[in-house]
């Protein structure tokens, strides 16, 4: 065990400095996290938030979507985009700079976190469709989008620790990057993400998904299948190069996802390609061309 290098309380304190989500976005998350929602519920929440409505209409009418005529109602937009893309728009447009932050403690560039989370979200949604209904695709997408949000907070405290963390993981003094975060800072990006999600008043299911995405076996039974889905989606994202920097592929992989996801390795390879294609069109619609060019 390494000596603590950072005051853990200071990190937890700094969670409070992250701006709150817009009311519309947090309402949307609680509707989705509650499960059993209908498209009409999503439409209603968006319509009650004028900024969110404006953003949804801006994206649906953007060149990336390529519709021939203008769409003027949220209802139509949701019908075209599907509920998961709407969740993406809501979070991307109401979480301020959080997803777009540079991650100096991970050597991650501006936009890496948002791209990684979007890839994981799409992969998690597709994996959820192969769980015999155990995991709701909308919840999986949302939890995927949020899973690494703790990095936006903890990164600033890790800047000086990067070389030592890499060494310790490389020399197997720590089992993986998460273990190293924990032993040097007394906390890790999962726990901080969970704290932030709590502050954003997210439903418990989403918080659990964030907390357990690197150690899915430890998730409470009701959410364990979802934790494995996020865990696998995260691993696939890093394998495909959608990572957030130095921690890429530096996490212990738990192969017991096979208890929850009905895909053999060839099925997963097919899924990776589908995710990649969906990611391209979604990223363009959500982030615009500017971010795609950084790839």
């Amino acid at each position, binding site marked *: 065990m390494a000596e603590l290098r950072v005051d853990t309380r200071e990190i937890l304190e700094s969670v409070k400095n992250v701006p709150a989500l817009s009311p519309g976005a947090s309402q949307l998350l609680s509707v989705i996290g509650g499960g059993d929602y209908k498209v009409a519920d999503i439409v209603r929440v968006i319509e009650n938030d004028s900024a969110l409505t404006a953003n949804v209409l801006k994206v649906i009418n953007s060149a990336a979507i390529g519709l021939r005529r203008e769409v003027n109602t949220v209802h139509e937009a949701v019908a075209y985009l599907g509920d998961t893309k709407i969740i993406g728009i809501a979070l991307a447009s109401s979480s301020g700079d959080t997803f777009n932050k540079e991650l100096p403690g*991970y*050597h991650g560039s501006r936009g890496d976190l948002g791209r990684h989370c979007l890839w994981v979200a799409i992969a998690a949604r597709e994996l959820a469709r192969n769980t015999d209904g155990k995991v709701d695709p909308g919840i999986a997408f949302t939890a995927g989008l949020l899973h690494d949000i703790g990095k936006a907070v903890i990164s600033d405290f890790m800047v000086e620790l*990067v*070389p030592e963390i*890499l060494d310790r993981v490389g020399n197997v003094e720590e089992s*993986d990057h998460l273990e190293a975060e924990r032993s040097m800072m007394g906390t890790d990006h999962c726990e901080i993400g969970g704290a932030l999600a709590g502050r954003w008043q997210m439903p418990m299911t989403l918080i659990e998904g964030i907390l357990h995405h690197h150690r899915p076996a430890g998730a409470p039974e009701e959410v364990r299948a979802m934790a494995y889905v996020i865990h696998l989606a995260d*691993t696939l994202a*890093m*394998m*495909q*190069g*959608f*990572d957030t*920097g*130095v921690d*890429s*592929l*530096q*996490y*212990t*992989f738990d*192969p017991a996802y096979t208890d929850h996801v009905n895909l053999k*390795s*060839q099925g997963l*390879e*097919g899924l*990776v*390609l589908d995710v*990649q*294609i969906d990611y391209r069109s979604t990223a363009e619609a959500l982030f615009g061309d500017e971010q795609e060019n950084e*790839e």
Partner: protein
Amino acid sequence: MSVVTLGIGEYGVVKNPGDVIKTHALGSCVAIIILDPTTRSIGMVHVALPESKVHPARAEKLPGYFADTAVPVLLQMMKGMGAAGNLKKLVVKLTGGANVMDKNNTFNIGKRNALAIKKALWQQRMGAVAEEVGGTISRTVTVAVDDGKVVVTSPGREPLNI
């Protein structure tokens, strides 16, 4: 003078002084780099998966995505640059193909990518002279026409010439 950055499944070639070709964050993907000392052109492809049979229709549109279709398309491109009848003189290098931290190695797309590429090269009676593959690090590779050096970098680590 131009900088060509390849996305997943893309391939390209550069040959003018000052030109650079690169691809970022390979993860378990493998970059095949082909240098032609005669024409001084440099080709590269960013391969994501070992076998096109998981998605034959997609392989037609995006042949660089799969190892078995990427090798022929890259060689075709090099021939187009003037390497015709001269394939033996081409210098092939590989990098990427990282694995996840998994003791049981259940999940080895990285390793399978590298093997599938080697197999496709053998079928053309070719082989790689240098490789920096495997492990659990995600790599970025950059090659400049001016010096022909294949430089592999990873965040937080020293660059490596292969």
